[in-house]
C-alpha cells in the first residue's frame, strides 16, 4: 500500500504518521492479523499490535498508559460477541471501553481515539479494514501528543505597574 501523506488529513501531522497501539485477543483477532500477513494483505503501517489472551484481560490502564506514552489511538480487537473463548470477556470489554470513552471525553481525548472491533481468526480482510478505518479516524483527529499536555511550560506574565493593573 502506498504511503499516505497524513498532513493532507490533518496538517498537524507534519511528516509524522499516526501511532496506533492494538490490543488483539489471542484466539481471534491476533490470528486474523497473522492471516492478513500470510495472505499478504496490505494495510496502513500504523498499528503496533500487542497480543492479549482475551479482550476481557484488557485493563483500561493499558489504554491510558499507551495514550500517555505517545499513542494517538488505541484499537482493541477481539472475538465477535458470543464467541469469546472465555465466554464473557468481550462483553466486559464492550462495557469497559464504553465507560473509558466517556471518561476520556471528559479529559479532552476524542473518544473515537479508542475503539473496539471484532475479527474472527478467518477474517484477515476485516482486520485490515478495521486498521485502515481506525487510521483514517485518528488521521483526521490529528496527533494526540500527551507529553505536551503534561509538560506544561509556565506561561510568562507581563510585569505591570499599579497604574496599568488598574486600567487594564
Amino acid at each position: 500500500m502506498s504511503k499516505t501523506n497524513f498532513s493532507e488529513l490533518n496538517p498537524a501531522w507534519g511528516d509524522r504518521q499516526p501511532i496506533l497501539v492494538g490490543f488483539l485477543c489471542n484466539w481471534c483477532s491476533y490470528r486474523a492479523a497473522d492471516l492478513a500477513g500470510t495472505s499478504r494483505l496490505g494495510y496502513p503501517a500504523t498499528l503496533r499490535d500487542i497480543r492479549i489472551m482475551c479482550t476481557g484481560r484488557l485493563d483500561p490502564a493499558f489504554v491510558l498508559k499507551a495514550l500517555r506514552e505517545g499513542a494517538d489511538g488505541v484499537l482493541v480487537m477481539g472475538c465477535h460477541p458470543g464467541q469469546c473463548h472465555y465466554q464473557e470477556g468481550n462483553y466486559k470489554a464492550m462495557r469497559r471501553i464504553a465507560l473509558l470513552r466517556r471518561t476520556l471525553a471528559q479529559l479532552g481525548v476524542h473518544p473515537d481515539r479508542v475503539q473496539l472491533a471484532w475479527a474472527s481468526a478467518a477474517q484477515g480482510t476485516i482486520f485490515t479494514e478495521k486498521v485502515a478505518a481506525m487510521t483514517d479516524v485518528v488521521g483526521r483527529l490529528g496527533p494526540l501528543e500527551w507529553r505536551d499536555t503534561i509538560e506544561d511550560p509556565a506561561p510568562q506574565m507581563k510585569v505591570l505597574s499599579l497604574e496599568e493593573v488598574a486600567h487594564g
Partner: protein
Amino acid sequence: MASTNGKPKLALYWASSCGGCEIAVLAIHEKLLEVAEAFDVVFWPCAMDFKQAEVEAMADGEIDVCLFNGAIRNDHNAHMAHLLRQKSKVLVAFGSCANEGCMPGLANFTDREHILRFIYQESPSTDNPQGVRPQLRTEVPEGTLELPDFWNTVKTLDQVVPVDYYLPGCPPEAKWVAAAVDAIVTNKLPPPGSVIGMDVAVCDECPRKRDVKKITRFYRPYEIVPDPEICLLEQGLFCAGIATRAGCGALCPSVNMGCRGCYGPVEGVEDIGARLISAIGSIIEAKTPEEIDAVLDTLPDPAGYFYRFSLARSFLRRTRMGQQDGRRVAEPIAEVPRLEPELAD
C-alpha cells in the same frame, strides 16, 4: 544535626490544601504531647509564627522529619517543596493533596485562564468592572509586590521532589498519624518509599455483604434508600471502595455513603479510574451497545467520580491542553463530533 535541646527537629507545612490535614495532626489528641515531648517543632506556620527565612537559614538536612501536606499548584508551593526537601532528612507526603492532588487536583479538569476568569470576573459575587487580575509583580511606591505564578496543572508532591514516605487520606486517620509518629519516635520506619497504612482495598474493611449481583442502572444517593447490609455498588450506588486503599475503617460505606476514594488508589494500582472502569464493566448487566449506553447514562460525570481525589496522579493527570488566542488552555470535548460509527458496528 541535632538541635540545641537534643531533640529531633520536626517541620509541618501546608501548600495547596484546605487545612484539614493540620487538624488531623491535632486529632491524635494526647499523643500530641508525645510529639511535643519527642520533637523540637522548628516550622509549623499554621500553628505558630515561623518565617520562611528561618528555614532558608538552616543547614541542609537539619530538619529530621517534615510532614508536608497540600498539592503543588504555584511557584511558591514548589519553592517550599524544594526548600523543605533540601532541609529535611525525611520528607513525608501527608494527606491526599500531597499524595494524589485531592480536591485542588480537580483544577486539572480546567486551566489557569478559566479559573482566574471565573474567580476574578465571572463569579456571581464578584464586582470587578475593570477586570483587575492578580499580577506576578506590581510596582508600588514602597517597592515591588510579588505573587507566585499560578500553574495550569496541579501536581502531587512527588511529581516535584523525591518523597520518602506517604501518609494518605483526606485527611489521614488519627490512628495512622499516630502510627507514623510512633514509627519515627522509635526509629522503626518502613523502607523508604513506603505508604504508611494498609495495602488492601476499602472493601476489605467494609462490613457490607457482597452477593455478586449485577446492576442495570446507577442511582444518585438521593434516589434510593439503600439496604444497610448489602454492598452499595451492587445496589447501584457509586462506591470507589473497590479501587481505594483501606485505612479509614470504611467510614463512608458504613453510613450508607459510597466511598469517595480519598485514600487514593489501592496498592498496586497506579490509576484509580482504570481500576474503577474495570470493576464497573464487570458488574453491569448489559450486552449490546444500546443497553450499555442506557446504563452508563445513569452515571453522569464518570471522570469526576473516578478521579475525585486522584486526578493529579492519574496516568493522564489532566484534561488535554491546547492553544487558544495564543494562550494554553484546557480543551474539554463538550459536543463530541461523530467521525465514524463505532468500529464494532
